[in-house]
């Protein structure tokens, strides 16, 4: 099993009442889990999920998650 820390942005935290913006979410996944596995586990659809940053780099859905990874998930938006 692996453990990753996830921070959510936009209005995504509102989906999870117990979310702590300072600490984020600690999520446990099976070995070899990918970004897509993570978003699925968090019940985030493609419409919800924009950029996923994995340890400071933009990640793709098929990217594998290392243990202790720090992930930030941002919403889809159109521009300011």
């Amino acid at each position, binding site marked *: 099993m692996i453990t990753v820390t996830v921070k959510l*942005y*936009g*209005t995504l935290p*509102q989906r999870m009442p117990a979310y702590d*913006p300072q600490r984020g979410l600690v999520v446990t996944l099976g070995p070899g889990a990918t970004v897509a596995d993570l978003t699925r586990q968090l019940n985030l659809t*493609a*419409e*919800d999920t*924009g*950029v996923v*940053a994995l340890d*400071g*780099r*933009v990640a793709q859905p098929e990217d594998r998650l290392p243990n202790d990874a720090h992930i*930030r998930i*941002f*919403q*889809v*938006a*159109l*521009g*300011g």
Partner: protein
Amino acid sequence: MKLIRVNMTDQTVQVEDVPQQYAGLGGRGLTSVMIDAEVPPQCDPLGPENKLILAPGLLSGTPLVNTGRISIGAKSPLTGGIKESNSGGKIATSLGKLGITAIVVEGRSPAGTLGMLVIDPSGNAVLKDASALKGMRTYALSAKLLQDFGPKNTVACIGPAGELQLASASIQTTDVDDRPCRAAARGGLGAVMGAKGLKAVVVSTEGKNADAIADPEAFKEAAKAIAQSIQKNPFTGQMLPALGTAGILGGVNALGAFPSYNATKGVFDGWEKISGEALAKRMQERGGKTKHMGCSQCIIHCSNEYVDEKGAYVTSSLEYETIWSMGGMIGVDDLDTIAQLDFLCDDIGLDTINTGVAMAVAMDAGHKPFGDGAAAIAMVEEVALGTDFGKILGNGPVAVGKHFNHHRVPAVKGQSIAAYDPRAMQGLGVTYATSTMGADHTAGNLLGLYLAGALKPLEPEGQADASRVAQITMAALDCIGLCILAGGVVASAKGREAMTRMLSAKLGQEMAPDAISAMGVRILQAEKGFNTKAGLTAKDDRLPRFFYEEPLPPHNTVFTVTDADLDKVYTFR
């Protein structure tokens, strides 16, 4: 459907029916087609031959939501080409309800004189002497005008920067709360207004003579469908009301596309201090507003009201682009400083984007250190004071670059880029380079495609085509008068069909399925034609050299879209 022509030279006002050649146009469509037809392309932008046109959108003043947008157009003193600058507030809806299709300001006031245009509830317009208002900043000016003419009016005005005819001068419009915090900011149109000797336009909000809708029932039905789409969309229905446009900051930063320290980095270390989330948290703690209606007819409420530690008003609305230009771009990670700079720019009548980037160039050249918020505030104040450096700063980043002989000036056709670095979002580079407006994110923003994973931001492939489509759509939205944040609804086939039905119902003629695209293409062709006649060439459709030569961390990429691809963007089939 009437035009009000104001001749500042002989101080006359004439009303005429809208000529057939402009029928079916509003907003940017009308300003650009009219400028192409009536303004000598080679004219001095600050001379009497230029025309300043204020045109509400085609659907402004109708029951459709989010149509409180006005286009202000002229030949730009900043770019040397055609310009449309877009603002919210109340003035577009007010003009629409008066049945006024456009105000066309021509000529130039006699030297030393200053005037204001006042339009009453019946749509009658008169020019009045405004010499007593000389030098006034926009907040005090708007308050005085609304006291003198009554609260049931709205104002478009210039501050000291416009009177000084500086190339970053804005035209400010009052919002729903009567504050002059909405801006037709880009391209120096405040300087054009100042050159004409026009300090303000006061418009009654009590008009009841809106142009008839040919098929009200069909219009109402389509309008309802569009409003529902806006409310159901997670971006317009949830994110914008909660965080404002600043809600996108984290995503852009994560993509390494947040130009920082004068576009030498794509990630800003202090981003979490100035993000939409941080802004919302601070306003909740202080009693400010994170969900605020700034423009009439708006159901999104992306605006905010920033307050200080004591809960006193500082500015509205603190937007993503300003948080970038007055924040990351100059290395400032303090929201209070950024809010103060935003207020100052509104009050002096300055484009926050061009001014922030001008300061970033000055800091990059060693004039002041990055991150020095107090120095930034002092620099902006210099503009209002009219000092030598203030005039240089107020003329924008190219003027500052020349002054310091500094090469890294992120501008195209004289106008600064916005808050997306073209090396990390190649398609934004295409839009910046090729837009008829100079570097302008609102001309064709591809952020949504990048965040949705529909287009790879670092690869050159597909960027030119995507930018072309976006530029066509944005031109049409600016013509219709629909807020571009709500404009995502016309990206879907269903939304576009509803909008086409609505235009048919409004104009009383069946619109072709591709009518919206055709509208956008017509506008872009008029603008491109004007710019060509004004002397702009393919060489002006390029980014500055440093974007091709200096890799941007963290991706360490440069701009790689070819010149051939850039030159194809304005090829329409």
